[in-house]
């Protein structure tokens, strides 16, 4: 996978993860173009489109579009499955996730994504394992937070 974008129906970017090194300028250009293209598509159209030399796989959940770019030889349906799996993970973590959860806790959304995908490849297919890793890392964070605040007090 080359990159993953999350954006709202209004075209506001909510999350971006790039697995290929690109300059900010290129990233912005690609994002703008893709958001436009995807938003212009009607709801009953299929989830795949060919764009430049990439394949774009996207899916809409409520007001959020999840959009991935994969290479020619990659499998579209697996990518769709990855998107869905990620949504499920978010849902489990936040408890019926909504766009606002992602806006306000965007770093958590990133952490979950990082536990699920690494370098553009799915690293863990088990939902349970991903959530476990996140919870433990969060716990670690809480502890160090706690220590930190006690130190300040």
């Amino acid at each position, binding site marked *: 996978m080359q990159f993953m974008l999350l954006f709202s129906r209004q075209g506001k*970017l*909510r*999350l*971006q*993860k*790039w*697995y290929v*090194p*690109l*300059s*900010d300028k290129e990233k*912005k250009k690609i994002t703008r173009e893709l958001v436009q293209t995807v938003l212009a*598509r*009607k709801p*009953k*159209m*299929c*989830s*795949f*489109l*060919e764009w430049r030399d990439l394949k774009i796989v996207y899916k809409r959940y409520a007001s959020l579009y999840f959009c991935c770019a994969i290479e020619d*030889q990659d*499998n*579209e*349906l*697996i990518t769709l499955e990855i998107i869905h799996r990620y949504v499920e993970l978010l849902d489990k973590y936040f408890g019926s996730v909504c766009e606002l959860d992602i*806006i*306000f806790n*965007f*770093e958590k959304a*990133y*952490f979950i994504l*990082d*536990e699920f995908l*690494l*370098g553009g*490849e*799915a*690293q*863990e*297919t*088990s939902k349970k*394992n991903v959530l476990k*890793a996140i919870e*433990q*890392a969060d716990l*670690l*964070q809480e502890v*160090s*937070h706690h220590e*930190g605040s006690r130190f*300040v007090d």
Partner: protein
Amino acid sequence: MALKIVKGSIDRMFDKNLQDLVRGIRNHKEDEAKYISTCIDEIKQELKQDNIAVKANAVCKLTYLQMLGYDISWAAFNIVEVMSSSKFTYKRIGYLAASQCFHEGTDVIMLTTNQIRKDLSSPNQYDTGVALTGLSCFVTPDLARDLANDIMTLMSHTKPYIRKKAVLIMYKVFLKYPESLRPAFPRLKEKLEDPDPGVQSAAVNVICELARRNPKNYLSLAPLFFKLMTSSTNNWVLIKIIKLFGALTPLEPRLGKKLIEPLTNLIHRLVITLHRASVEKNVCLIGLVLPIVCVCVCVSNAVLISLSSGMPNHSASIQTVPHCLYVSLVTVKYLGLLAMSKILKTHPKSVQSHKDLILQCLDDKDESIRLRALDLLYGMVSKKNLMEIVKKLMLHVDKAEGTTYRDELLTKIIDICSQSNYQYITNFEWYISILVELTRLEGTRHGHLIASQMLDVAIRVKAIRGFAVAQMAMLLDSGHLLTGNMQRNGICEVLYAAAWICGEFSEHLDDPMQTLEAMLRPKVASLPGHIQAVYVQNAAKLFATVLQKHEGATDSQAAQDTSQLLIERLPLFVQSANLEVQERASCILQLVKYIQKLQQKDVEVAEEVSALFAGELNPVAPKAQKKVPVPEGLDLDAWINEPPSESESEDEKPKAVFAKEEPKQSRARHIEVDEKELARRREARKQEQANNPFYIKSSPSSQKVYQDAPGVEHIPVVQIDLSVPLKVPGMPMSEQYLKLEEERRQKERADKKKKDKKKKKREKRGKGKRDDSGPESEEDITPAHQVDIVTEEMPENALPSDDDDKDPNDPHKALDIDLDKYVPSAENTLHKVTVCMLHAEKQGDLSITRHFLVFLVPLLVQKSLKNKKKKQKKEKDEKKKKKRHHHHHHHGDGGGGDSVQNGTVEEEEEEEPLPVSRFLPITEQKNTVYDIQGNLQDGSQVVVSVIFENKSNSFLKSMEFNVLDSLNSKLQRPEGASPHDGLVVPFQLPPGVSNEARFVFSVQSIVMPQKLKGTLTFIVKSEDSSTHEKLDFKLHFTCTSYLITTPCYSDAYAKLLESGDLKSSSLKLEGLNMPFHHLLARICFHHHFSVVERIDSCASMYSRSIQGHHVCLLVKTVSS
């Protein structure tokens, strides 16, 4: 200090956190930019504070702003600061920010190397995890080189969480630093059988990605993958593996035979599911199953090809796939089309029967579907249906909205028609008219494509030239219609082709005068420069034709009028801003003026004028130039002149710092060349040029050479009887050809029928049973014109080469490493037991980077014992070659001879007989993998962790590990134990299981290499018996294995060298022919050095031992 902290915490209360920022932005919808700029100012203030919590908060906010599109590269250094916080909370934020905004150009990345290395070896697995995740986003070639070793070590971490991340990130490392693939591969392979399914699937992922690009190097893994395929229950892994086999089967036919059974089973199962799903219109199920079927079908197709035999279930799947098209859900429709395009390659017939369905898809609202359908059409055309399909496409072109799709259609039409050298075109007049019709598209960006097609057809199909010229003349005449779109590659490009064709083949023109007039209209001056240039040049050609036509005729008025016309119109072009146009125009203008003078004197000029443009141009293949074989004796890489002196760059090298400098080798001697020799060479060159058809000679006879060239006359052009009148009034309509074609075929069929009755001979071809009313078969359709497509010229004895299409920039090309070759060098690695690498890592805390070594695989060792000895010697040579070791020790005792010692010790090892036979029976059952960790906290302790793997079918228990202590190194045993007692390994090994145990050694001196002998005793318990077994092994700690990869900056390095505390020695190695960077990579990898600075073929390297000895190394190539 306390006050500062309190102050910091008070400040923090007023700081905005991320939530406040997001809320703030949402509340300031109308003046968002202004609000954010004040926020950024606040953040800048926060970053200036010492409190890391404040900084982390600021960085977190910046990450959010970065997503909104604001530049935060200015804060890169602060991000690094937060990354290096010891608290996980902040570290996490730091790495997140880095992964979002660092890229290869970010210069602070090089500051992170140490920090990342530290985090990678952190005792906290989440620290390591976060570092790995971050690294995966911003790994650069430098980082990859420096950290490859550390990450490789992590691949054998005890925690599966780390292992799987390390395995996945290795792929990124390979891409950035291909040299790491070879050493890392054995371990990667090992991970395919990792007990943790996550790690296993990660390894499958990585190897599949690698193998997909360079499948042939991974053939040897096929049995392993086969095992995985039959045993894996994870669909994600399954899909990957099947895809991998798809790439492997064409290379190894035997694999196909083996695969066919499991695959048929799988397909059979899936097809049943799929069939049921499509009958029940269960869209979800179809969606789930279809991709696997697609992949399987593809693979089994490859299998089929390699076996060239049928498979019953296979046809079932092909019948099922088209069913999906009736399902309304677009996604499934898309996948159905996708599947069909894959099937098409091997079973074109079964797809062709669904032509109508696919054509229907062209009407779909969804562009993705339409594009897929177009792709399919490309593969479906035949001589029979080409015209029909293109007609449908032309209709779509007319009603298509959106230029992108229309352009796509246009290119597809051209692709479809021109594929495999116009194989399917039976009537080129039809094709020309299609091209002409396409010029009427508005706003297309493919003018150039159409133009090149026109040129190609007109040049290569001689029979069509008359018709083409007539059409082009018409285009030129209505040229003003096409000039609306002036952009580059716009439709006006076709005028370029039109003008050239009309000029070059002007003998076919009915009324050259009229065309000439059209080409010189004032409006032409608004065309792009390169087109005008062609206009001017071809106007001259036309002029020559007109002259020739009127020559000899009684009234010379027409010819003189033509000259006059040119003289009137050309000045317009002489004034052109385009240099090319101007030059050509003024040249031709003068020529015409001169001709006019001659004409007025009634001199016959036509002959001479047309001689200007005589000769025919042959099409030359685009690759022709590349394929000209290099003449014997010509070395393209040899210097023509003396290479520039390298003395300047040599001076920059810090050679003065080193006490002993090798006397400089005398440079390759300057070859004295005298005048005679030069003259001789000149003569030889001339001779060569004369024989070289591609050399443009200075002699004026070049035209003649063309004419004399054999070939042109010999190209057999069959004269044709045209069933279609050449002159088509008005613009051609391609549709009429369809009708004509139909009629023609009908007639032909009728003719044939008659012939059939007459000639029994024909029956053979018609297979005797041919039903006349039935659809005609492919070969029965004869082209309307007996067309001869001139093949593009290639130089004589051109070298055939297949690599033409490979993209040299493909990053995966570097990874095309033949890993099978690795087997001998794998033994080298295995054998590194003898060079046992002790890899220690400087650490604040107790975690240690580990280096696993595959240990003792005597089967392999025995098989290639001779082989290896050679190899080993070679490798040792490599190590020594061209190296000058300068070992420097702060405490100068005994350090001087290190490097030499290192070398000699290794040699000794070589002489030692390997106890192969004794190991053999045992290691068939067991495989032991080493991991030795130096503990830096205590500079005299080493932790060796050993992975025991039971490869036998028996149960292993009661393992005891014992090492014969030496004076210098001792195995640490529990208190009270005697120095000869073994340590009990705290686990048992069921068959196929591996586990790890750690042993601590204390080491006195690390300035000398060590060898420790040891034994492992264990009980092998099989069903009926249990035996006591013993496995001997050796642990070798060489000096370089005590080194830790430690980066060093060049200023610190220079200071170190200047300090004079270092001792030095040097060593020269010869007979080495390995690229320098490769050599460096080896030294870095195997001996834990890091490159400080590299200038051409000279590099300074640095490393330090676990006890803090500095080791500086200068490696340089001395040209012999």
